[in-house]
């Protein structure tokens, strides 16, 4: 990896070096890998991606699965399957950074499937980054499939701030007894970028819980669409919140759907879309910030 590659890598991981197991993929090929005592990473036989195996009773495992794309005209599809043992505590950071200055588009479709063992906890951070002058040339379509075992927990945090021209993000989850899924999504689009999100969650287990919060900002001529489908199939609790700020000619659609198939399914959905609250601008301007500075602070705080 050259200096630019390392900079692109850091834009996803936020780190200068990776302390844990990792697999770095560049322009469609795995270029660097490290395994640990509790985490093994194996290339799939058909070369379509990798399998990541975490042993039972692994405490504080760190795993990094970043992808960087620096060539144009690339179509990269990869399957990463995470098999998490029982009673383990794992931190996984993944994401894709695309940087090129060519009008030919590059696209990365990453399919991440999580099989989380009983009593385990997974923190999953996904960052997406794009850089380059040509419009419609950086495309990311991440798919996440999650199966949560009994008493297990997953916190998923996804961020996409500018740079990505088109993205369709799909997340499918199945929750067993006493399991909890928390998803936080932050998206910012500008120019004529578009971002679509779909969450489908089946709360099959007794006392399963799901919390989804989406915070987004659409400005200039960009468009966003948020869809969530929650199926309450047992005694369960779900709360879905879509909160969006629009500016200029930005468009946001929020379509939350909840279905209760059990009398003890407790399902809530909320959606709010609007411009930056005038009173928030007034407060910050009364502290001496200009209108532009106030807007910047409000959006940064909102998407934090």
């Amino acid at each position, binding site marked *: 990896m050259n200096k630019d590659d390392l900079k692109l890598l850091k834009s996803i991981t936020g780190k200068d070096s990776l302390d844990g197991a990792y697999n770095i993929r560049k322009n469609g090929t795995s270029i660097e890998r490290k395994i640990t005592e509790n985490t093994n990473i194996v290339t799939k036989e058909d070369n379509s991606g990798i399998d990541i195996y975490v042993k039972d009773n692994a405490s504080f495992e760190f795993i990094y699965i970043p992808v960087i794309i620096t060539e144009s005209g690339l179509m990269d599809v990869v399957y990463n399957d995470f098999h998490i043992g029982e009673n383990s505590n794992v931190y996984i950071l993944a994401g894709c950074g695309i940087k090129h200055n060519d009008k030919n588009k590059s696209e990365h479709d990453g399919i991440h499937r999580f099989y989380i063992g009983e009593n385990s906890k997974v923190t999953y951070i996904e960052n997406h980054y794009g850089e380059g002058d040509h419009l419609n040339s950086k495309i990311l379509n991440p798919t996440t499939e999650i199966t949560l075992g009994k008493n297990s927990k997953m916190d998923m945090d996804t961020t996409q701030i500018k740079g990505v021209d088109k993205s369709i993000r799909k997340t499918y989850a199945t929750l067993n007894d006493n399991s909890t899924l928390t998803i936080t999504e932050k998206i910012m689009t500008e120019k004529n970028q578009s971002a679509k999100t779909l969450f489908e969650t089946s709360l099959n287990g007794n006392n399963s819980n799901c919390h989804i919060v989406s*915070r987004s900002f659409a400005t200039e001529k960009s468009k966003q669409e948020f869809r969530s489908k929650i199926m309450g199939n047992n005694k369960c609790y779900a709360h879905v919140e879509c*909160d969006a700020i629009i500016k200029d000619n930005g468009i946001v659609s929020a379509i939350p759907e909840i279905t209760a198939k059990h009398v003890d399914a407790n399902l809530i959905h909320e959606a709010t879309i609007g411009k930056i609250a005038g*009173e*928030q601008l*007034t*407060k*910050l*301007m*009364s*502290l*001496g*910030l*200009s*209108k532009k500075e*106030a807007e910047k*602070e*409000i959006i*940064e*705080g*909102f*998407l*934090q």
Partner: protein
Amino acid sequence: MLELKNIYFKRDNKTILNDINLKIEDNKCIIITGPNGSGKSTLAKIIMGIEKPDSGKIIYDSKDITNLSLDERAKLGISFAFQQPIKFKGITVEKLLNLASKNSLNKKEINELLLKVGLDPKEYLNREVNDKLSGGELKRIELASVIAKDSKLIIYDEPEAGIDLWSFKSLINLFLDNKLNKKETAIIISHQQRLFKIADQIILLEKGTIKSMDSICCPNKNCCLENIYE
């Protein structure tokens, strides 16, 4: 010194402020009181620049600030404590105080400021200033943000709103402390007669007009005010 000259303000065919003329000297504590609908909050917002008068002038430190925007007046050292504190999403107490002070306060000073308004820094520094905080907590943070800012004139719009009975004494102490130590000019919009005792001057506003401007030397300073609050 702040001077208001012939301020008029009308909305929906109703006169809210009718030819207001007022001079406020530096380092004084002035209370503006009056019944609901008398125009007190509107007057406060006009001084700050949140509202613009239909006609008239505002002179501050010999400069005509009538056409200056809200943030331009804030940069001159004019500050405003909102009656209903503003809630955000994602901005923490620490961040708000840093924005107010332009990052000029160190961690120790921020902690001392929170203690001054009755909040434990360990508990509140990283809390978001959002709707999960109680009205009283939000009010204290609002006051802290105004104290954190570099101010020469602070306008408090009904600071007692949202403060419980037991905390009112510490609110008075806060004003007294500012009056004695910081040499700021304070304009307090208030109904609270207990605050009148700390004022250098009490201005009574009624139906958009100044009815009396009473200095603290007047022995009967509460008499005309008692009629309003019967």
